[in-house]
């Protein structure tokens, strides 16, 4: 049996087991991500790291969107809170020149409780609403947090952002930081996968599909939504924490509503109905962004046309095409 048919056989087996096609997709992606540094040049590592960080950001967003059925337009607030927490801890240490690896890891982890706390406050109000009002309120809170960071100059340096961030010497080379990001994102993704497959994850889907029935079952709908909102915010914070040392700086745009649009695009491009969808979306979106901007200044036009085509012709996202193809093939074979 050739390698290709072996792969498709295992994909089919996974589909037959009524598993999400996400498992084979994630495994294939993991192998590709591990092999990526074989491509020569530093640029591919930068793109790869960005794909992973934004991919985790989008995965966390999809906890709210794909699994809970709500749309948050303020998710970047938690990404930005995480980025600023880590940046504010790292900046004086980096400037003093004594940044150790352990301290660095602790600074990354410190982002999680801060973002979680932010998500707890925002979520407390947001989960009282659904649909368009949920989207609006999350956007309003996101903008509010943006303006606080933007105008609190003495603490956040406002518009200037925080410059001069660095990973510790051990993680400084692009390839090492890439693998470091890969490990963190892979662990976080595994945790997210576990959450979506837990009774809690199934409660979320139930709530998405039929909130009234969920409430009849005696489930505290708001509490489940709030817990999920905080989880999503925490993972977004972790993604944000990785951003500063990677980009060497953080700025208020990380919390802005344009940044909040990024995980929305990624989820819809990849397929919000699939766990791995946002990650696939990040590969397409970030990949396009990195390469298209080299050839044209009209990146917004390009991504706009891509999104337009996706919405009109592939509303389920790219993974739905793979899924549909697999299902058709399975039906064809007795």
């Amino acid at each position, binding site marked *: 049996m050739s390698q290709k048919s072996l792969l498709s056989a295992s994909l089919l087996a996974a589909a037959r087991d009524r598993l999400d096609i996400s498992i084979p997709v994630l495994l294939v992606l993991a192998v590709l991500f591990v092999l990526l540094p074989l491509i020569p040049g530093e640029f591919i590592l930068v793109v790869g790291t960005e794909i992973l960080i934004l991919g985790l950001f989008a995965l966390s967003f999809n906890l709210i969107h794909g699994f809970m059925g709500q749309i948050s337009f303020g998710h970047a607030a938690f990404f930005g809170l995480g980025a600023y927490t880590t940046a504010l801890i790292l900046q004086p240490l980096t400037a003093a020149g004594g940044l150790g690896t352990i301290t660095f890891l602790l600074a990354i982890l410190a982002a999680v409780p801060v973002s979680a706390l932010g998500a707890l406050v925002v979520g407390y109000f947001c989960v009282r609403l659904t649909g368009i009002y949920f989207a609006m309120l999350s*956007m309003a809170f996101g903008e509010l947090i943006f303006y606080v960071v933007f105008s609190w100059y003495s603490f956040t340096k406002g518009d200037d952002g925080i410059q001069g961030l660095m990973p510790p010497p051990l993680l400084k080379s692009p390839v090492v930081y890439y693998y470091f990001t890969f490990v963190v994102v892979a662990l976080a993704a595994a945790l997210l996968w576990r959450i979506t497959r837990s009774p809690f994850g199934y409660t979320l889907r139930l709530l998405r599909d039929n909130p009234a029935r969920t409430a009849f079952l005696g489930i505290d709908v708001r509490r489940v939504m709030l817990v999920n909102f905080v989880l999503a915010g925490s993972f977004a914070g972790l993604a944000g924490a990785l951003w500063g040392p990677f980009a060497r700086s953080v700025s208020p745009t990380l919390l802005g509503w344009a940044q909040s649009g990024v995980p929305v695009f990624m989820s819809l491009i990849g397929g919000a109905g699939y766990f791995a969808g946002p990650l696939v979306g990040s590969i397409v979106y970030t990949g396009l962004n990195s390469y298209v901007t080299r050839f044209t200044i009209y990146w*917004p036009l390009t991504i*706009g046309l891509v999104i337009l085509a996706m919405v009109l012709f592939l509303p389920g996202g790219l993974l739905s095409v793979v899924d549909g193809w697999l299902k058709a093939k399975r039906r064809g074979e007795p």
Partner: protein
Amino acid sequence: MSMDFGSFLIQLLSGLSRGMMLFLLSAGLSLIFGVMNILNFAHATLWLLGGYITFSLYTALATQFEPSLLLLVPAVLGSTAILFVVGWLLERFLIRRMYGRELPEQLLLTFALILIIGDLIKMIWGVQNRRIVLPIEAWPVFDSFINPYLFVIIGSGAVVATFLWWFLARTRIGKIVRAAVYSRDMVSALGIRIPTIYAMVFALGVAIAGFSAGVFLPIIPIGLGLDMDLIIQCFAVVVIGGFGSIAGTLVASLLVGIVYSFSVLIWPDGALAVIFVILVAVLIWRPYGLFGTEMRS
């Protein structure tokens, strides 16, 4: 901070004119949402397009005639007409496919339009800000100066608002539009062409946006990015006032316009933040807006 009566009056007037513009923009947004259940993210970007078209028409006219307020009239009307056609075509070829789709997909499509139209503007008009300078003398009032053009904005806003009310309340087509908000199927069963009504409502909303941009051009320079600020304020207005309520939209627009105008003096960077505080408060206290009723699903 102390404030003399003259500057208070100026802030009030500029707040009112800003509120008027927000009203014209939000009224279209709210009308489109009420009738077709489409939240048009690109509404303010179409507003921006209308502003640029007005700028080009006015500049072209100004090479032939003496620049004056009167010259602005054909430029604004021309831009309004062009935007009506743009709106009609957008509905016909894109928006129409989104009826019955999920909210995120609708938002995504109209967001794609923001990116596309924004870049088209960049291609045609470049990145520098554009404005029209009208030869108008400021009026001295209480030791300060008031730009009398503010009254033109407030007046024309009031005229369009009255027209909109008259159109919806008194004309046959307006009644059909209002009926379509309640029951699309029933209206359709009566033999009325729903697709035409929808295209018209969308085009009308976009045309009013274009009109308000043109009218506003002599007091604020327009540039890319302004559409983002504005659409967020429109969402704030529509939510504060309540979806589908024209009266609510008017009150909320004036409130937001005036609050913005005064907060800019006190906290320039945070003027929008003040609006969001109001928005958050309204959403928590009355999620359906000050004048709204619980929405149909």
